[in-house]
């Protein structure tokens, strides 16, 4: 695709996204959200580059976007094989930000994440990470850029021990980073206890910790989490979210897909609602939770 063509498409898409943004910001709860310290960043909308209909404040925030966005997805079209799932998806994750993607089943939530990690068929648009275009790269190249990914299912090597799983997480390094293994063990003490146990013998919650530990072995700037609470017992779900909070507090940006939308939106900095492979809403997690339309349509009232 020539750059001219993509430029044209981009402005086209921006206009559309811009008009959506008006609707997005029309929802309730915005004033409440703005009380929060981080809401300045939160109020950014999908209408990233020069949305025509946004308020002045939003536009000002948008203008600053290209400089501080760690992950910047624009007009992304992607899918599997010939099947297109995502259309003109926009998404931003700032440095150290905690962003959640929610939406109904089949909305393409996981597909966004997989696309960022190079696991889908790329069909158009741009994905930039730390200022560099990464769309079209293979997963093993994206790992080098500083992105860690925890798939939803089968996310540990069952026949390998806990320690070996962590070692595999740092495969691209020449030496096993012992200090980083210690960091992971300190974060998830159960993994230290079980270090010589096969991952396949562990419980769902422990596996999820191991999967995150493996993805954190390279100390990524951005961690992609695909439904980390799926299949966990209810009492473990809170614990899992607490752990994710702590990972984020330590400076790792998080982009998470969650079925457990209320919990996820209550904790994140910003949320995206995706419907039919397109952006529907974006706002602070708090604002989305308080938005009547979003609540009615996606959060079960």
């Amino acid at each position, binding site marked *: 695709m020539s750059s001219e063509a993509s430029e044209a498409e981009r402005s086209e898409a921006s206009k559309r996204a811009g008009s959506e943004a008006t609707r997005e910001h029309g929802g309730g709860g915005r004033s409440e959200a703005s009380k929060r310290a981080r809401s300045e960043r939160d109020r950014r909308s999908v209408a990233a580059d020069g949305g025509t209909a946004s308020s002045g404040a939003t536009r000002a925030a948008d203008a600053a976007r290209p400089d501080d966005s760690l992950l910047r997805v624009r007009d992304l079209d992607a899918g599997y094989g010939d099947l297109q799932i995502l259309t003109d998806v926009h998404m931003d994750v700032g440095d150290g930000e905690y962003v959640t993607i929610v939406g109904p089943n089949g909305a393409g939530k996981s597909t966004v994440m997989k696309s960022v*990690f190079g*696991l889908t068929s790329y069909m158009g648009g741009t994905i930039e990470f730390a200022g560099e275009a990464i769309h079209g790269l293979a*997963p*093993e190249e994206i*790992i*080098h850029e500083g992105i860690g*990914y925890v*798939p939803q299912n*089968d*996310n*540990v*090597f*069952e*026949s*390998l021990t806990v320690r*070996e799983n962590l*070692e*595999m*997480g740092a*495969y*691209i390094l020449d030496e*096993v980073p012992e200090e980083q293994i210690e960091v992971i063990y300190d974060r998830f003490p159960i993994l230290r206890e079980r270090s010589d146990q096969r991952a396949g013998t562990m419980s769902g919650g422990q596996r999820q910790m191991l999967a995150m530990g*493996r993805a954190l072995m*390279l100390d990524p700037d951005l961690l992609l989490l695909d439904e980390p609470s799926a299949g966990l017992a209810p009492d473990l779900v809170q614990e899992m979210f607490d752990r994710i909070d702590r990972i984020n507090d330590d400076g790792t940006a998080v982009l998470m897909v969650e079925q457990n939308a209320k919990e996820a939106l209550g904790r994140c900095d910003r949320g995206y609602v995706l419907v039919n492979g397109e952006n529907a809403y974006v706002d602070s997690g708090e604002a989305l939770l308080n938005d009547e339309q979003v609540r009615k349509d996606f959060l079960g009232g």
Partner: protein
Amino acid sequence: MGISETYSRGRNLAVSRPFVLVAVAVVAILTLDIGRRLAAPGGLTSAQLATFLWEGLVVGLSIGLAGVGLSMTYSILNFANFGHGDYVTSGAFAGWAVTWLFAGAGQFDLATLLFIGSVSTRDLGVSMLETPLAILAGLIVAAAATIGLSLLIDRLVYKPMRDDEGISLLIASIGVALALRYTIFIVFGQRTRGLTDAQSVPEFAIPVGGGGTLDVGGHELTLVVIAAALMLGVHLLLQTTKLGKAMRAMADNEDLAQVTGIPTERVVRFTWIIGGGLAGASGFLIALERGAMNFQFGWILLLMIFAAVILGGIGSIYGAMFGGVTIGIAQNLSLVWIPSEFSTVAAFGVMIVVLLFKPDGLFSGVTTA
């Protein structure tokens, strides 16, 4: 655990898995029968029993060594490679050409030696005692040539099909098998040729009690020692090296290996290097132990290799080692009761019985590459 619970567990087992009980009973009866025959005057001697077990171990390790490569490529590439038997033959021919060249250079015509042609094995005098260096060189070349061959075939045939179904790859591998076998046939001919000088192979008599001895051939011993060492080497590679762990990781979950940053194509290449190397080495050693070979011995052996690998649980390298030894010992120990014409039947019988109650093989669920 209460008695009634034990009872009901036992009853459940008897109802749901009657074969387990039958198999346990059969093994117990056979063991008792061996004891009875040993005790009876004029019956089985301890020397005979020891010989059966030793021969079983020799056959078993040779099959197991060849099976490790087959199981490895199965677990990482997800297809049953029917060309594996002919990799074994190819390695043996390449290796023996070099061994003969080393042993007979200056004494015989080079072309005759290179094509493992009509030379009196007596005059050539190849054995571990007389020409250990020629045999060592042959072993190394057998492994190296088979590594080269399997990498070449992977590049030409399997790599373009990497994302295809296992069944397409399997059919392609049958084509590879035929192509290899008849290439060897065209180059070397169909003659079964003697390789070693049986007279100069040392034998060791080991007393086994009751006045009998177990005769251990020098070449059998060579095979057992080298096969055991290679298997230990594979074990250490898989358990302690970064590459070995990556191979196990990829056998376990290829998609996850990819998102973890493991270079999957490199792992595939190393799988062929190790699997091919072991196939070539096992071919050379089997020919050394038998003292003869022809162009299709690997293909014929493939049936036994598959039996061993399936018995152990296809995809598990420890299963391949264990399955090989089980098949080998079953085949030889069956001679206590049945004539040797039927010993292969006994080997496959054991495989069928095991699969009846452990359909995925003995080491299923313990996927260690």
